[in-house]
C-alpha cells in the first residue's frame, strides 16, 4: 500500500515526461530485472544498470550504478530516471530511504527462485513499465513446464553446488538459495541439507554426503583452475563426483538469475547432469 502511494507520489515528479512511454528513462538494478525489461522489448529505455546486470550484451555498454547492495542516491538521481526498477535485493536500506525522501520514482520487484517467482517478476515489471507481461510469462512457463514430465521420470542425482573452490574449503550451497532451487528443478537433489545459505564444506562432510555431481558457475570453475583444480581440493577429491569427474559449469546469471531465461537454464543444466536423458529441445527465444 505504502509503496504504491510512494510510487504515485513519485510519478508526479517528472509528470511531463512520464506520459510519453517512448522517452522514458529506466535504471534497472538486479540481473533478472534487467533481463526482463529487455525481454519485454523496453531495453532501449534502459539508461543505466547495476554491476549484476550483465545480460543481454547491450547492458555492458551502459553506465554502471555499482553493486546492487551499495547504491548511490545522488548517482541514481543524476541519471534523471523516470523510474528506478529495483530488485528487492537492492540496498542499502538507508540509501533507498534517501531516494524515497527525495521523491525518486521507484518500483521494487520481489526476487525469488522457481517458476512462480519468475512469472510474478515478469508480470510486476510489465506493470511498472507499462507493458503487458502475460505473454512473456506464459511462454516462459510453457517452456519450463515442458521439462517437468521428462525430468520427473529421472532418478534424481545427488549433487552439490560449489560457489567457489579457489581458496580454502569449498563454499557450498545449503538450503534456501537460488542454487538449491535450481538443483531441485533440474533432476538433482542438493545433498547439503544441514544449513541455509553458503558455508565452507569440510572434507569429512563431503565424504559423508557423497555427491555424484558437482555444479559450479563457469567463472568460479575457471578461477579454481578448471576441473582438475576443483578436484584437487581435499573436500571434493574424496567424492563419487570426483571419481566420475562429473563437474559441470553454467554461466552464473543464466543459472541462478530466475529471469526470463530460467526455463532454458533449467534445460541446459539438466542436460549436463543427465546427458543420456531424452529432454525436449526448447524453442529458441529472442531473450535467451
Amino acid at each position: 500500500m505504502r509503496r504504491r502511494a510512494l510510487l504515485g507520489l513519485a510519478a508526479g515528479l517528472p509528470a511531463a515526461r512520464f506520459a510519453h512511454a517512448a522517452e522514458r528513462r529506466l535504471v534497472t538494478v538486479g540481473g533478472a530485472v534487467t533481463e526482463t525489461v529487455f525481454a519485454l522489448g523496453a531495453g532501449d529505455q534502459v539508461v543505466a544498470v547495476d554491476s549484476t546486470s550483465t545480460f543481454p550484451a547491450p547492458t555492458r555498454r551502459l553506465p554502471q550504478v555499482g553493486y546492487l547492495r551499495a547504491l548511490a542516491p545522488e548517482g541514481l538521481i543524476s541519471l534523471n530516471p523516470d523510474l528506478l526498477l529495483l530488485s528487492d535485493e537492492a540496498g542499502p536500506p538507508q540509501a533507498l530511504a534517501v531516494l524515497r525522501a527525495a521523491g525518486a520514482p521507484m518500483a521494487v520487484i520481489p526476487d525469488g527462485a522457481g517458476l512462480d517467482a519468475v512469472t510474478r517478476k515478469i508480470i510486476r515489471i510489465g506493470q511498472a513499465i507499462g507493458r503487458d507481461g502475460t505473454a512473456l510469462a506464459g511462454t516462459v512457463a510453457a517452456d519450463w513446464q515442458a521439462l517437468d514430465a521428462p525430468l520427473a521420470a529421472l532418478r534424481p542425482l545427488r549433487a552439490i553446488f560449489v560457489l567457489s573452490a579457489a581458496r580454502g574449503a569449498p563454499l557450498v550451497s545449503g538450503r534456501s538459495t537460488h542454487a538449491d532451487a535450481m538443483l531441485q528443478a533440474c533432476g538433482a537433489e542438493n545433498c547439503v541439507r544441514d544449513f541455509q545459505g553458503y558455508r565452507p564444506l569440510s572434507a569429512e562432510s563431503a565424504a559423508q554426503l557423497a555427491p555424484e555431481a558437482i555444479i559450479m558457475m563457469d567463472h568460479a570453475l575457471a578461477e579454481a583452475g578448471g576441473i582438475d583444480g576443483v578436484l584437487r581440493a581435499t573436500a571434493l577429491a574424496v567424492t563419487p563426483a570426483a571419481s566420475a569427474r562429473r563437474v559441470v559449469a553454467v554461466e552464473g546469471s543464466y543459472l541462478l538469475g530466475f529471469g526470463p531465461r530460467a526455463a532454458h537454464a533449467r534445460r541446459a543444466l539438466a542436460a549436463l547432469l543427465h546427458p543420456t536423458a531424452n529432454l525436449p529441445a526448447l524453442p529458441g527465444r529472442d531473450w535467451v
Partner: protein
Amino acid sequence: MHIARIAPPQRRLADRPTLILLGGAVLLMAAMAAGVLFGPARISPGGLGAVLADFLGLAPLPDAFRRDAAVLGVIRAPRVLMAALIGAGLGAAGAAMQGLFRNPLADPGLIGVSAGAALAAVAAIVFGATVFGAAAGALGLWMLPLAAFIGGLAATLLMTRLGTVGGVTGVATLLLAGVAVNALAGALTGLLIFTADDRQVRDITFWTLGSLAGSRWEQVPVVAALVGLPTLGLIALARPLDALLLGEAEAFHLGQKVEVVKRIAVTLAAIAVAAGVAFTGLIGFVGLVVPHLLRLGFGSGHRIVLPGSALLGAALLVLADLAARSLAAPAELPVGVVTALLGAPFFLWLLRRRAGGVA
C-alpha cells in the same frame, strides 16, 4: 639585513590561535559549500537560484527545478552536515587520544570503540531480521546505528574497566586492554561472519568501508547532539591535555585531576566516534592523520590542535565524501576508501620525514 636581525622576532603563526582557527573555519565553510554545490547531479545556476529563492520564501519553486531542490535539500544538505559533524568528531577524538596516550600512533580505534561498533553492527546485519525480529520492525533503519553506538560504548567501557587497577588508569595497561578488546571483538565479528549468508557478508564488507550515502535530515539532530556536543567537550579539555603532555606527575602538580581528565576524555571520544560510525560505518585515517597535520604546522599545543583537528577533520570528510560520490558516478566509492587512500600515503610520508629528522 643587519637591521632585520636585531628587529624583534615576528610573531609566529602558531602563537595566533584565533587566526589559525579562523582559517580552519573558512576552509570548512568552503568545503561545505563545495559539498552542497557539486556532485554527480549537475545543478545549474538558475536551479540553485530558484531553490534558494524558494528556501527564503521569495518565490515558489517552478516544477522544472523540483529535482534540483531534492538533490540540494534532501540529499546533499543533510549529507554535508553529517560529514562535517562526524569528521569533526573523528578529528577531535583522534587529537585527544594522541594527547592522552602521548603516542602519535593513537587513534580512536585504540580505545576499542570502532571494533565494538563493528561487532554490534555485524550482529545487527546478521541477526537483524530473525533474533531481533520485533525490535527490528519497530526500530527500522535505526536498529543498526543504535546497535553500533551501544557496541562501541560497551567496548570502551570494558576496556577502561580492564585498564583500571586500584582506581588508577595506567596508560600502558589501557593500551594493552585496548589491544585485547580489539582482538576479542574481531574474533567475535569473524564468528558472526562465518554464520552470515552471502548477501550479509557483502553488507558487512560495505559497512566496514564507510559511507555517508544513507544521510537523512532525521539523523542530523541525533548526530549534532551525540557527536557535536562531545566534540565541544573534548575541545574544552585543551588545558588539562596540555598539562598531561608534560607527564602525569607534572600534570598532577599543575593541579589537574589526572584520573578524571583521562576518564572524561576517553568517554567523550568514545561517544563521538561511536555515534559517528554508527551512521556511516568505519571511516579510517581522519582521526589519525588530521591531528598530525595540525601539530606539524602549529606545534602540539592542544588549544590549537584540538579545535583545529575538529575543523580540519570536518573539512576533510566533507571533501572526501564529495570525491566519493563524484569519482565513480553514477556509482559511489566507499568514503572510508577515499580517506584511507588520501591518509595512508600522507602518513607514510610523515613517518619517513620524522625518521629523517631523527637521523
